[in-house]
């Protein structure tokens, strides 16, 4: 009798876990589909509307290698393939990177306020890029993202070595080190802004975050780094689950905590630095998307990471669509939009589930 009961209990739990896994796969497909719909919608709207039929026709034409481009307006073709499509890819990649890095940091630092910029990376990138803007005009413009990327990576490395004691890197020291180094770097940036003169507008635009510079070559440059970064983060899903306990328990459960922290830090830095170097430090995605996903799906990182990636991509694509259409032909920096819609949406979610979110 007792064993029969135990068996039925076991079976019901096994069934529950199977259902959970199956519904996770299904909803992941659903979220991917939703992202595709968002991307298609965003391709059609803009200063020049492209009818859905024409757009699908042009895209299938390209995919199937039919030289049917002539059937469509050449300017529509240009807008679609050399302006909008790379821009949407860029926004999607950056959204993936920021949302996943934010999710990973929130787990690793066990801190709900953690975002991808916690380690001084955005201030480092800003200083590098602003310095790039102010270089003599004889130097190539391509130096701006390079300097931004270097500034970002170097500031994280500095913070890492400041925080390291012996063989361990305590996360609280890492946070505080990030804040201090960030503030130090920001003071230089502020000074540079004051002396920037007529370049101020462009710099502010970059600092707030924008995809207006997106093109295929830039997408191709950052895509491998971002994909590598998010792949490593994805592999850290189980260690991140266990590390939400605390580091001692995680270690006792067989996780190599220090190695995991270094891997997460490196992967998140790579992805985030690539995301910000062309587009500026777009705020809010990295903090609200993971929380929103956590509120809906719970704390399992095996769900949290992929869904954050898709949601982050979708959110930034939509935000960028708003940024380029709301006041067209004037463009709003996308960072303004993310905070503008992100904050109220997040507050709404918080009100919905008051039982504690972390």
């Amino acid at each position, binding site marked *: 009798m007792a064993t029969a009961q*135990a068996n039925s*209990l*076991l079976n019901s*739990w*096994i069934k529950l*876990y199977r259902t959970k*896994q199956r519904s996770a796969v299904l909803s992941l497909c659903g979220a991917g589909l939703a992202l595709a719909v968002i991307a298609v919608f965003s391709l059609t709207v803009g200063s020049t509307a492209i009818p859905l039929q024409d757009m699908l026709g042009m895209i299938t034409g390209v995919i199937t290698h039919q030289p049917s481009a002539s059937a469509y307006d050449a300017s529509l073709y240009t807008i679609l393939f050399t302006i909008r499509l790379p821009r949407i890819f860029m926004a999607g990649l950056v959204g993936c990177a920021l949302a996943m890095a934010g999710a990973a940091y929130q787990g690793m630092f*066990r801190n709900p306020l953690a975002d991808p910029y916690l380690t001084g990376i955005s201030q480092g990138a800003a200083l590098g890029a602003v310095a790039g803007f102010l270089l003599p005009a004889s130097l190539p413009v391509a130096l701006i993202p390079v300097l931004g990327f270097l500034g970002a990576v170097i500031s994280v490395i500095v913070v890492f070595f400041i925080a390291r004691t012996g063989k361990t890197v305590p996360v609280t020291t890492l946070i505080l080190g990030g804040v201090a180094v960030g503030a130090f770097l920001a003071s230089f940036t502020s000074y540079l802004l004051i002396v920037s003169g007529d370049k101020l507008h462009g710099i502010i635009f970059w600092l707030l975050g924008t995809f207006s510079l997106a093109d295929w070559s830039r997408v191709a440059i950052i895509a491998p780094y971002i994909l590598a970064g998010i792949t490593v983060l994805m*592999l850290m899903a*189980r260690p991140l*689950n*266990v590390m*939400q*306990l*605390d580091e*001692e*328990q995680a*270690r*006792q*459960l*067989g*996780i*190599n905590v220090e190695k995991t922290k270094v891997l997460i830090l490196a992967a998140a830095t790579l992805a985030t630095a690539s995301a910000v170097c062309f587009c500026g430090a777009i705020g809010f995605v990295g903090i609200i998307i993971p929380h929103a996903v*956590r509120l809906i799906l*719970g*704390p*399992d990182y*095996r769900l949290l990471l992929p869904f954050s990636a898709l949601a982050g991509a979708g959110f930034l694509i939509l935000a960028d669509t708003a940024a380029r259409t709301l006041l067209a032909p004037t463009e709003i920096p996308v960072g303004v939009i993310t905070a503008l819609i992100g904050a109220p949406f997040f507050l709404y979610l918080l009100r919905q589930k008051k*039982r*504690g*979110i*972390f």
Partner: protein
Amino acid sequence: MPGIALVNASFRYGRQLILRDINLETSAGEFLGILGPNGCGKSTLLKGMSGLLRPHRGYVTLNGVNIAENNHGYTARNIALVPQNVALPALFTVMDIVLMGRTPHLKLLQYEGKLDISIAIDAMEATRTVQLADKRIDELSGGEKQRVLIARALAQQAGILLLDEPTANLDINYQAEILNFVRQLCRDKGLSVITALHDLNLASQYCDRIIMLKDGYIWRQGNPREVLDAAAIREIYGVDVCVYPHPVNSLPTALVTPRDMAGSN
């Protein structure tokens, strides 16, 4: 040489020396108790034995190999630790937490399977937490959390079980139940159990061997009859007690008397 061995091991936090020159070996099927007042290093000793804290002198071996050279997964498949007073993240369910005990047995991308769920349910049944399985951690009482942590350690299926004050938050029925169960694991499955305890009488009743810590070293060790006498308890805890044989099994039982009633009669 299976089990944990500490050889001239000294432990410190920062510059403060907590334990010095500890020599200790565990053996399969033995219930080992660690006694001593608060702050004497019981938890430190358990952390040192589990490999969480490295000795600054001497060394610790697991199954004959220096524990520092093992990978974390191997250590966690051999040693499970039930910590004391830890915070658990609120959003996880009891089942989630217990299944985390399976971590060292799973590959990086492997999902928990039938076997893991069945082991988790067995562990929860043993600790009477199975009816809580789908509850969230923040809905549990302190004692329930304690039993969930024990279930997680059991799900690790390690041959060595370290417990840090496992009965601290529990009512007397659960104290007895947990210790009975753990001792049964010792007897039936040959588990090696090492537990820090603050209750002298529970230690006397359940332990095969008791280690008494004082000023950072092992002051005395032996079976309960050998080590638990009024003089030893006075030396270690600085309190006067009467030690009587337990009416059922004649094991030493310590009784406290209020100071103003001492010597009356």
